[in-house]
């Protein structure tokens, strides 16, 4: 039976193993946004033996790029919502294994590499409602920091303080279950039946 759970960062393994696909999470604490270019630069840094700009152990990593406005010295988040997670599939092993991220938030789901890494390193994939940046940005309290603005506003790492970010649906859990895999297998079975008819 699906549950509703409130979690705070930093996340521990025991927070994550309790979650099963279908559960709904509201997350408070800190989330770090990262898209393609931030991932690529993190990989470069690690290869060169440099440290990434944040300690991601126990972190929630949000595949997102916000709409922001400058307000004096501060940034105001006008909107923030998920981008397509599948583009970040090549980085899962590093993100979950080496960096120690515990929750990936995004949309569209991820593949088998990620599912294996979630199981191996005790992590979870949370689906946030796609295209719902007005609702999601209501959970953002403030922008704490931003790194790598030279990559452009969407691709920078935004460090956001959030309160009850959600609803986030547990779509891939740490036990090897994926809603996306189940849905895809059913779709392919239906597809072959339709094409036979």
């Amino acid at each position: 039976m699906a549950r509703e759970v409130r979690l705070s960062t930093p996340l521990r393994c025991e927070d994550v193993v309790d979650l099963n696909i279908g559960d709904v999470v509201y997350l408070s604490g800190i989330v770090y946004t990262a898209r393609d270019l931030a991932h690529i630069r993190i990989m470069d840094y690690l290869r060169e033996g440099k440290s990434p700009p944040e300690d991601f152990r126990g972190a929630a990593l949000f595949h997102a790029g916000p709409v922001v406005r400058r307000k004096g010295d501060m940034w105001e988040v006008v909107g923030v919502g998920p981008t397509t997670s599948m583009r970040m599939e090549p980085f899962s092993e590093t993100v979950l294994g080496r960096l120690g991220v515990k929750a990936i938030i995004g949309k569209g789901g991820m593949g088998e590499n990620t599912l294996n890494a979630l199981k191996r390193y005790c992590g979870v994939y949370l689906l946030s409602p796609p295209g719902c940046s007005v609702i999601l940005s209501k959970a953002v309290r403030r922008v704490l920091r931003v790194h790598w603005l030279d990559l452009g506003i969407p691709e920078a790492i935004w460090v956001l303080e959030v309160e009850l970010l959600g609803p986030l649906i547990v779509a891939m859990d740490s036990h090897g279950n994926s809603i996306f895999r189940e849905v895809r297998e059913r779709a392919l079975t239906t597809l072959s039946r339709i094409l036979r008819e």
Partner: protein
Amino acid sequence: MRVIDRKTFYEIALEVVKRSCTRIAPDAITLLRSAYENEKNPAAKRLLEAMIRNAELAVEEDKPVCQSPGYPVIYINFNDDIRIEADIQKIFQKAIVELTKQGYLRPSIVHPITRSNTGDNSGVGVPDIEIGYNPEADFIEFIVSFKGCGAELANVVKVLTPFQVGRGGIGIKRLILEAVANAGGVPCPPVAIGVGIGGQVHTAARLSRRAVSIREWTDANPDPELAELERRLLEAVNSLGIGPGGIGGNTTALTVKVEMAYTHTAICPIAINFHCWVARRCGARIYHDGSIQYIYALHR
């Protein structure tokens, strides 16, 4: 001959670009509401509820519906009696840059190879412009369409041989259903699917984007055969059960739109173009007497 001066047209462009990023077309809202009514998966129903509420809040709070502005295409129909005294692409570029500065559009346009962001959504070829001609109308009209790019990632283009088209076009149906199954949640379902068939590859691609960008999603194709094809494809797509957000459910697609051109005897080009549920499609019709009407579809 009526002449629309540069300043007047810029103001209209500014208003329409702003409307198209802060609201979604009413026909899409209608379809989302019926998807919500029909949804049996509680988690998927929750996503649909969030989508509808988010679209309402965007209008109330004057904010962009989605954080990603997607990629802009402007569809314009001219005629002989009304002339715009300006470079259309530059005017829209200026409006887009201005609304980016005001925080309505996230700067998201980059060089395709270096990935360097221009910082204001300007760039070579942006916005894309498609020009049409409608000599009978007593108006000129345009649609601004910002289409999200998660949806683009799922697109498929293929040139089929006559053998691959198969009996009754079964090969086309197979290609579309495989694209939907492989796409899963990537294109932000519930989606609209534009299918362009015929011509050469560029024709099919152009038609596929037009299909989901200049028609109301609730309309029926005036060609009865294509209308029937659209209805059957929608039913088949939704039987796959991908559902809202890709987490399983009754509505995978809100609509399927097919546009066709005749092709060469050797080939059948086909383009499958996904549009996320965020139907940012708004335009204006400027009449000969100078009056303006906001629209969500182009006259056919």
